[in-house]
């Protein structure tokens, strides 16, 4: 076991192109150690997750709001959206974006896989967020909506100043678990050729025949990412918790 750890540590500090072992584990210009490759892959994982999260939040709030509007077309569209993106496995959705859609619109053939991965993952997650935003808005007593409208606010103003400030703070804790999910789900992007951590783990494992070492590296970074988000989320949660709501400190 300790022998394996020693060999693994040495391997991580080894160049990916030749047999040089760097004592600092970081190669200079023009070369890359396995550890550096792993960190690059981590960067791609986080980038995909972050961009997808932004897309998912924006679309999720819009679709979630649509599902609560007093307009059956908006509600229908919102529900169709949610069901469509919720009922197809994420890997199949990514294949649709990467392989099928460019077949329909050849212009998209030049779009890099990573952009499509962000888009696909964002839309997939937007359905889940929409679900929670809708639930959040529905927890607000109807009287508040009517009060807003009775004051002479428009529909948009009622949402902007009355409903959303409360609803978004109600759903925030569930959004933290969504951000953890999005990091985990970003691993699927490897299937369309994004060089994130799963892609690193399998490729570097193939190259070196030390699969466990590479898997362990990726696994540790996934765990660190999840843990960090969890802590961050707890912090945000504490800062934005509705005063007077169940579980609030005050």
């Amino acid at each position: 076991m300790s022998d394996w750890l020693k060999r693994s540590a040495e391997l991580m500090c080894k160049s990916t192109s030749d047999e040089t072992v760097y004592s600092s584990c970081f190669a200079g210009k023009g070369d890359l150690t396995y550890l550096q490759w792993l960190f690059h892959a981590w960067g791609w994982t986080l980038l995909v997750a972050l961009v997808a999260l932004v897309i998912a939040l924006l679309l999720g709030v819009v679709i979630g709001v649509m599902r609560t509007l007093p307009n059956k077309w908006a509600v229908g569209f919102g529900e169709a959206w949610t069901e469509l993106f919720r009922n197809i496995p994420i890997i199949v959705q990514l294949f649709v974006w990467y392989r099928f859609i460019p077949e329909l619109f050849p212009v998209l053939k030049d779009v890099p896989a990573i952009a499509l991965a962000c888009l696909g993952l964002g839309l997939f997650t937007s359905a889940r967020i929409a679900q929670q935003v809708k639930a959040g808005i529905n927890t607000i007593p109807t009287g508040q909506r009517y009060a807003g409208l009775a004051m002479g606010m428009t529909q948009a103003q009622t949402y902007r100043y009355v409903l959303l400030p409360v609803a978004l703070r109600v759903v925030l804790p569930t959004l933290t678990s969504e951000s953890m999910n999005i990091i985990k789900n970003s691993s699927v992007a490897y299937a369309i050729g994004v060089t994130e951590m799963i892609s690193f783990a399998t490729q570097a494992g193939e190259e070196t025949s030390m699969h466990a070492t590479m898997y362990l590296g990726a696994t540790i970074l996934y765990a660190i990412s999840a843990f960090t988000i969890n802590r961050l989320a707890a912090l945000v949660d504490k800062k934005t918790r509705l005063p007077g709501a169940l579980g609030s400190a005050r």
Partner: protein
Amino acid sequence: MALDLDYSVLTPEVIKTNILPGLYYSLELTFVAMLGGVILGTLIALMRLSSKPWLQRIAATYVDTLRSIPLLMVILWFYLLIPSGFYSMIAGSFGENHRPEFAAVITFTFFEAAYYSEIMRAGIQSVSRGQVYAGYAVGMTYSQCMRLIVLPQAFRNMLPVLLTQTIVLFQDTSLVYAIGAYDFLHGFQTVGQVYNRPNEMVLPAAACYFVLSFSLSMLVRRLQKKIQIIR
């Protein structure tokens, strides 16, 4: 728009030889992992709710670890770590030839157990304390109390959630892509490769997954309504 889609290769013959075996495998995987996952998950939930701190800690570590790692990573780990002798031990040469398929069943059982255990924990906690006291008062042991009073109610309360998780599980089975097990998605991909239509075959795969999961979630919703009325 260059529309050159051709689905004529999807003849009944092709569907029967390439796609249906994949569908059967996906369903089998879902079913076995659900069964095993719920049983194992219930045990983990009981450990987590036990009065012994070390049991609680083991269960919590198990659940937290598996829930913070992507399923794809877990699939790769299990496939790497299950010794090759294991496959022939449980299914002879059939197991030897279907390593990814067997590895996936084991992976999903252990992985989903972490998720099912959280559901079962909530279910057990939803049973009122008085029920347990009543059980003890009539002289039941801990295991009788759990088996005859608490777990049946926990299952019933959590049935819709357990089934919703199973739909998620069904969708997740498509990730066996990583180790090349022959599932539903793989069936479509094989057809795409054999008939040189790899891009087109993505759409029917998506459509089939959609129809299956959507109808399952409709069923769960109906069941949920039914249970609500009775209570």
